């Protein structure tokens, strides 16, 4: 784009110096402010304390609470009360936690399976922080068995349904051009629905991100950056002048990636929810996920129906779309972090909406100079309704 520049600006020492002047002045202002207080006397009259309880682990006669100090100063954990009993605690590495520092509070407690516990942690300023354990059960340890269980969960909700959807490929190939446009619109509908779902999930998760990490900001950065990055990549491919079939194949791959990241988020949510007893993964729920996610496989293959993708490509797309659910379940199950979850979900949302944009361009190319047809309208609506109706099974 910048082959012809009329004037070459040279980067001289003078420019550098001019650029540095405000920075040097800023450093001066900061050091002056730090050393004198700048005449301000606005220290907070009371300590505002914030403690994020990240997660808890229940072991035999032991409750471990993972906390992070998200306040502006250090805080000290002084006492713990479980169900109206003062319980001795051990805090590692130290009961005094620096800003943004982490600690583990260990409480020897004869908790019972299936009962509920209300825990209050008191800081030395007598600020209470509450944790509710709605149903107590031993937290699954990262051992080979639970590792395998979470892999199976990911397999059921991600890989299997996506591949099942891909198996529609031979049948759908025989359809006419208008039906293919319809299917593309269905895919776009599916993706719009998934994208909204992902954003909603990200916003929900953002609420539990420690304030200092600005959950909403992470959503913005993750989604916008992913969208623009994928857009730049797809533009470069367009410019590289490859044939239409190759472009359609790369679009299919991008859909697979978008859906894959979405499934990663889904795996994260399932793994984390399973660990704190929020859901029991009954057969009904798994069946529901399979039915809902089978449509995702359909979406992946829609752009390449008129081409002849190799079996290897199809298998790869299935894996990209489905397998992240396994990784998600592992991360969510063994090392849940709301901050990380928000980032993944935001990336997923950015990817999904970029793919929707790509599909829209492709549909437009196929239906040149026609107003949005009923085919596109009904396809898009069908896609969204498909997920809404199948969602009834798992919500």
């Amino acid at each position, binding site marked *: 784009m910048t082959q012809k520049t009329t004037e070459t600006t040279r980067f001289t020492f003078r420019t550098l110096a001019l650029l540095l002047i405000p920075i040097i002045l800023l450093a001066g202002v900061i050091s002056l402010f730090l050393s004198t207080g700048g005449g301000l006397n606005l220290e907070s009259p009371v300590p505002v304390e914030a403690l994020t309880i990240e997660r808890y682990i229940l072991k035999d006669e032991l409750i471990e609470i993972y906390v992070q100090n998200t306040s502006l100063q250090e805080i000290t954990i*002084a006492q713990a009360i479980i169900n*109206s009993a003062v319980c001795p605690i051990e805090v590692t590495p130290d009961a005094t936690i620096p800003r943004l520092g982490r600690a583990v509070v260990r409480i020897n407690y004869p908790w019972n399976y299936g009962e509920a516990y209300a825990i209050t942690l*008191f800081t*030395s300023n007598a600020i*209470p922080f509450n944790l509710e354990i709605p*149903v107590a059960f031993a937290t699954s340890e990262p051992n080979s068995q639970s590792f395998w269980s979470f892999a199976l969960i990911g397999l059921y909700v991600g890989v299997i349904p996506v591949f099942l959807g891909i198996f529609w490929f031979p049948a759908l190939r025989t359809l006419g051009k208008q039906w293919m446009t319809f299917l593309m619109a269905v895919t776009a509908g599916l993706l719009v629905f998934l994208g909204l779902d992902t954003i909603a999930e990200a916003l929900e998760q953002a609420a539990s991100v420690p304030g200092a990490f600005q959950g909403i900001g992470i959503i913005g950065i993750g989604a916008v950056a992913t969208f623009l990055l994928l857009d730049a990549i797809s533009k470069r491919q367009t410019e590289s002048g490859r044939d239409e079939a190759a472009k359609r194949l790369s679009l299919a791959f991008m859909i697979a990636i978008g859906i894959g990241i979405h499934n990663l988020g889904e795996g994260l949510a399932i793994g984390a929810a399973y660990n704190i007893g929020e859901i*029991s993964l009954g057969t009904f729920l798994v069946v529901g996920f399979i039915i809902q996610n089978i449509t995702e496989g359909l979406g992946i293959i829609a752009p390449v129906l008129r081409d002849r993708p190799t079996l290897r490509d199809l298998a790869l797309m299935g894996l990209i779309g489905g397998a992240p659910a396994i990784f998600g379940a592992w991360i969510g199950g063994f090392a849940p972090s709301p901050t990380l979850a928000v980032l993944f979900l935001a990336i997923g949302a950015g990817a999904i909406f970029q793919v929707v944009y790509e599909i829209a361009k492709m549909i437009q190319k196929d239906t040149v100079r026609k107003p949005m047809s009923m085919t596109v309208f009904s396809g898009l609506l069908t896609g969204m309704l498909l997920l809404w109706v199948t969602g009834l099974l798992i919500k």
Partner: protein
Amino acid sequence: MKNQLSRRDFLKLGALGVVGTSGVTALAQTAGKNQTRPFTPPMQGMDHGGGVIPGTGNVDHEKNGFNPGDILTDFDFGKVSTLPDGRTLREYEITVINKNIEIVPGIEYPAWTYNGRIPGPTIRCTEGDLIRITMINGSNHPHSLHFHGFHPGAMDGVPGTGPGGTVEPGDSFTYEFEAEPFGLHLYHCHVFPLARHIAKGLYGAFIIDPKGGRPPVDREMIMVMSGFDVDFDDANDFYAVNAIPFYYQNNPIKIRVGESVRIFLVNILEFDLLNSFHLHANFFQYYPTGTSLTPAEFTDTIIQGQAQRGILEFTYKFPGMYMFHAHVTEFAELGWNGMFEVTE
């Protein structure tokens, strides 16, 4: 007492119900282990072998400026003199002081105190004595001394009854009245907002002995039951006798077999409706409000509402460690728990 869990979702439990019994079994075994060694010395901190006992370590009594171990037997008879008419005059001076008190290890409570301690001094006199108590308000809030017992309205320490009703910061007032009726009473601040003024620590016991005294016993102790709402949500977080939770659990009260013990028990617990006292492996004679020399009840558990009080008398037959605590068991595990260590 806090609101407990809002709701338990039993539906979620359905599929997982089988494993439950093993947890219960484990707990039963733990309890059994405890029973086999009843003579364990003071329960303190975590006991990794024999299960968990609620409690805390010791606070910094020196920094607090008072020790429940001393308060237990600290009766203040005042500066005694004889009036021209032959009556006994007892003079006291009580200063209201704002003071941070370490209630449980690591948590300092911004208390209001009479003479820097909670409970305030245990004022003890005999029926018919003239009592003269000067209250100096060294804090930054208006306070008062309101005694239970007979006295003129102007000595009632309640806003609206004259200068003694509200003593402003820096001011002082001398309450004067004849001590009657005999019994176990109490005093506390009566300035609005009352619940907060009491909960912050402004209370103490007031004992009027009958002329000629109560029948002699070997040991006399004062126990004032109260609680602390450290996060100011109008619900107690910790409970105690003589202010420091778990003190007598960590430092058992030593008595001897056959020794007659008299406990002056006062309840000034704010926010909760009831408090109670239960003595293990023993029964006591109970004299409600101490206004009679004939016991009203022979029991091992009594209940007191706020400002109710009574005298307990008992003797231990066997040596051993004996618990005494609120049989509102929630309070016990939040601090109102103690031990008698009875030796031959």
